[in-house]
């Protein structure tokens, strides 16, 4: 997800300004999504394109035109209509996009993990980062408190660089860079004579190591101008990110995008990591994935 300077000539940066694909649905929040997307496109210097997956009828077309007229500060927005499975259409249409934006429900129902919603399916299949907006603001403001959850095993420097660019563009108050630290079955060691201090020491030592590894990455990314806090969160992957975001009143949570293929019943029954976060959005969520090289 690049941040281009809108004034940049395409020839200077070597590629045309990036594109933001905004998915519009026939829902009451579509206008707010469009407004939020419009603000963000200006902040990130991205061209904006609207897409509706469904049949094009004059009534629906008119409805979207009115919606965009009310929502956008600049004229010129038009909607592309396509039919098909939403996630497949988005995967195709977003090939040249740098960001997909769409509305989402805050919470999935009890069967949400098994029968994934449209927003979750799009986040899984889109070829670029996806921004899910569960409750878009009628008066959009920059994201001020960002929580970026790095991959627990191999944090991606590329993701960190994109997060830092976004943080700079949005002039954040605080960027929390966190890593969830799950120590499976550690409690069972108590049955084998380990005491509470030992298990606690194990947690704290691993947390310290994780924090410093993240800090190294950040130092290597030249993150000086952004106010940053590094944390490691002991607990279950996916769940701690939600708790931490709520505790810190985050307005944007950034997580590595879930794997494209969620094929096993096991994963659907026992969602973990990003899949778990997606079921219960504490705020807007950006599912980050690396851009495909052309």
């Amino acid at each position: 997800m690049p941040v281009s300077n809108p004034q940049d000539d395409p020839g200077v940066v070597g590629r045309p300004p990036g594109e933001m694909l905004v998915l519009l649905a026939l829902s009451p929040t579509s206008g707010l999504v469009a407004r939020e997307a419009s603000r963000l496109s200006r902040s990130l210097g991205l061209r904006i394109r609207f897409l509706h997956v469904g049949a094009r009828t004059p009534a629906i077309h008119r409805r979207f035109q009115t919606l965009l007229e009310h929502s956008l500060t600049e004229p010129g927005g038009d909607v592309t209509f396509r039919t098909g499975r939403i996630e497949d259409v988005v995967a195709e249409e977003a090939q040249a996009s740098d960001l997909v934006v769409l509305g989402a429900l805050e919470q999935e129902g009890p069967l949400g993990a098994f029968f994934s919603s449209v927003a979750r399916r799009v986040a899984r299949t889109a070829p670029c980062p996806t921004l899910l907006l569960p409750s878009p603001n009628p008066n959009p403001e920059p994201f001020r408190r960002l929580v970026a959850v790095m991959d627990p095993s191999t944090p991606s420097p590329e993701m960190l660089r994109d997060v830092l660019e976004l943080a700079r563009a949005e002039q954040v108050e605080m960027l929390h860079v966190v890593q969830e630290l799950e120590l499976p079955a550690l409690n069972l060691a108590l049955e084998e004579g380990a005491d509470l201090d030992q298990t606690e020491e194990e947690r704290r030592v691993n947390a310290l190591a994780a924090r410093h590894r993240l800090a190294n990455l950040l130092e290597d990314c030249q993150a000086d101008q952004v106010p940053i806090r590094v944390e490691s969160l002991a607990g279950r992957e996916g769940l701690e990110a939600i708790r931490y975001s709520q505790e810190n009143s985050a307005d944007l949570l950034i997580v590595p995008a879930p794997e494209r293929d969620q094929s096993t019943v096991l994963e659907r029954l026992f969602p973990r990591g990003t899949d778990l976060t997606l079921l219960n959005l504490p705020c807007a969520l950006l599912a980050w994935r690396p851009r495909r090289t052309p």
Partner: protein
Amino acid sequence: MSHAELVSLFLALGLLVGVARALGEVASALRQPAVLGEILAGVLLGPTILGTFWPQATARLFPETGPVAFGLQAMTQVAVVLFLLVAGLEVDLSRIKRQGRMATVVSVTGMLFPFALGFAFVYAAPGLLGKPPETATFLYALFLATALSISALPVIAKILMDLHLFRTDLGMIILAAAIVNDFIGWLLFALVLGLIPGRHVEEGSFDIWTTVTATLAFAAGMLTVGRVALNQMVVRVQAHSAWPAGVLALCLSLALLCGAFAEWIGVHAIFGAFLVGVALGDSSHLRERTRLILHHFVAALFAPLFFASIGLRVNFVESFDPLLCLVVLAIACVGKILGCGGGAILAGMPSREAWALGFGMNARGAMEIILGLLAREAGLIDDRMLVALVVMALVTSMLSGPLMERMLARRKPARFVRYLRDRGFFILGSDKDPFQAIEAVAGGLSTALDSSLETLLEAIRRRDRLTGNGLAPGVRLAHARLSGISTPLVGVALCPEGFRSGGDAEKVRAVVVVLTPQDKEVQQIEILTDLARTFLDARLRRLLLACSSALEMRALLRSSQSEPQH
């Protein structure tokens, strides 16, 4: 139950728990599995030792029939149900997928190979493997194959913790594979128990096919709808009752109720408790501290009681069959080590790591013993086989850690004491604050650096803003990575009375400054984790804070490193 019988019951329970817990602590202090000491307590108090030299005492304390025996038996049944509840809490089935192909291969081969080996051996030499004539060969083979294919997650967790391998790739692969082995092992065992013909002839019991169908439906229901329902129950109970009493009562009552249901449909109660554990363990609302309390509750009271009770029921000397023990141990080790190690090599792991993984997964521990005792109670195996399984479980648990460590032959991690500089050691008065202490130490260390003191302090402040500075109670870390140095530098400032502080925060009594080369992350993380482990040890921290020179600190740390840490 009469007054005298109540006295006997409480006496028996008190003795069992007390002696088992004490011997379990002794075993832990000797770096052996706690279960070894707990079983030994039963051996001492039961027919093996006390019963041989003073049979009247054993008969009086632990009668074999009557209300006291019934009471003890009921307590051990409750113990094993709770044991399986907490085992289930730690089962995270999706972990196997997250650990990738290696964990999947290890888990499959580590289960299938010992299973096939055990199954084939029973058919090839049933007599050698102690099959009682009245037990069906298929059922016996199924049981032994299951017993040989499980791993003990608690032992593995403890070994990984002791070897500081918990968050390594190897550690996570072992844990993922062991979790799956555990899960499949218990399901298989429940099936074996359900297939025992005797369980289906009692009045009111179901036929075998109804049992199998009901078991599958129960498992599927608990892992889908039941899991969601339990998650909602946890939220409501936590919201409307005192914590942790409300949620603990919920967990325990669900385990017992589902245990009762499992018994009713014809499988053992452990199956119900285990499934409740798996479903509850997945709850996004069950707090970590609740899990810890449950673990403590079971580990402190019910585990000693259960394992000591084994020694009460079996005469370990009379039932000790050296040949059977040897054969069971050999098949168990060969099956598991080859299955897991071979699988890991096939999946591309370097051979030393692969065999270390095999040794780690070979630990059987308490799970094997529970399995053995339940099989004996169900009449599937005799005392000789139970003793052989206990011996196998203890030997594999004792050998796993040392063999794993030896096989890995890891490079010794960097210790901070090696880089502690005399000119970076200060004892300061309480008129100084922690920032002044950092300045003093950094000033001492900066004489060995090209960069100025101000540059160094700015690098420390930048790092501090990112990561915070807490290291241990009363100990503050000041750290920076520098490009101009080739070797780490460590300095310490101590203030026994505590540095001057502006607020009510805990007094800082030590400041440790660590400077590491920019390009040596492995060394940096090793030094920082070594520092954390050292200062988180309360005894060592107290001694370190009393040191008066870098030399004294080095001597203290070097002598403590030669002792076992825990």
